[in-house]
């Protein structure tokens, strides 16, 4: 097989260089494509683009304009990812508030604020009951939700309650406990 191939290649080269020798070429009837490919040489010049050049090219810019299939805007609302985002958001709110208080307490003497527990308690005592109740609900909702959902996460880390049904049930349980605990804490 290799011998055949070698013969074939050398015959082609011979036909390309000296077509007069071959009966095919001298009659001028047709030129097989293999011979044409060898006899015609078309110089093609390529140029190298640097990375920044390639980025500004028309093709790259057109790629950026292509439409994107909708993803976040069409995902079906489900308790899985709603509660997952709520867990992160409530965690960020609680920790953010904690950090802000910690930093503010440190700079308070320099700025002239009074953030001791006594002054804070006195300030809150002056509020009407409705405002106090609303503020307590506003604080206890994220706290209780994050706590209960955190326990749900820890249960998952042991490997249990990971079927779809169990996840949905535990999710709704967490929501119910959150509302009940928040109301209890706010009314305490």
């Amino acid at each position, binding site marked *: 097989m290799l011998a055949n191939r070698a013969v074939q290649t050398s015959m082609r080269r011979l036909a390309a260089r000296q077509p007069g020798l071959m009966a095919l070429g001298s009659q001028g009837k047709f030129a097989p494509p293999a011979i044409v490919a060898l006899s015609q040489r078309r110089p093609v010049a390529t140029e190298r683009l640097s990375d920044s050049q390639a980025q500004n090219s028309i093709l790259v810019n057109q790629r*950026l304009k292509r*439409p*994107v299939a*909708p993803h976040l805007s069409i995902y079906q609302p489900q308790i899985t990812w709603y509660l997952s985002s709520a867990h992160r958001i409530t965690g*960020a709110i*609680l920790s953010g508030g*904690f950090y802000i208080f*910690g*930093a503010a*307490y440190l700079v308070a003497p320099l700025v002239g604020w009074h953030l001791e527990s006594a002054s804070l308690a006195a300030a809150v005592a002056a509020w009407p009951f409705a405002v106090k109740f609303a503020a307590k609900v506003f604080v206890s909702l994220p706290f209780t939700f994050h706590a209960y959902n955190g326990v749900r996460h820890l249960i998952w880390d042991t490997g249990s309650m990971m079927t779809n049904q169990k996840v949905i049930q535990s999710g709704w349980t967490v929501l119910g406990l959150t509302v009940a605990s928040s109301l209890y804490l706010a009314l305490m």
Partner: protein
Amino acid sequence: MASIIRPSLLAQLRAAPLSRRVFSTRSLPTIGSCSNPSRRPAIRSHGEPASLAARSSILPHSVGFHATPARPILPPLPQRIQGTTNEAQPIVEHSATEGGYHWAFERIIAVTLVPLTVAPFAAGSMHPVIDAALCATIIIHSHIGFDAMITDYLPKKRVPKTRKLFEWGLRAGTLVVAVGLYEFETNDVGLTEAISRIWHA
């Protein structure tokens, strides 16, 4: 453009009188297409090249077969091809602080927080050492949480400098809060006692 995909459209273009309606996606009965109940009018893309309209004066403002709005959520990033197929896959560097130990530490802190948060309020009083432990655990838990958010939303390949800035900013913030809470514990009544007083004020 579209005529390449739908030859019947091209035929209609030639046959029908040229008006805006011809180019609408609303009422073109093509072969084999069923009526779409949630049809939207063709939305003009802001990035549409003007050359198409400029070339022929018969075309009205260009319409396309766009089903998504021009401003997508999380648009595609500029595409970069790194390396060739002949290069080996880069080996990710190992870190003692990331990985399995980090995960276990995170869970231990979370588990510790459950009794530490409930106990003082249930018991009514609080020993200052346990109160300090609660403060420290909350700070560590918050730091790990914020770090997870930074890792998720600021990938190194996309925004390396912003990521570094936020990481170090978080560390500085945690340090500041730790010092502030130490001052609060020392000068004031303690975290649980303060929360209790404000809550029942």
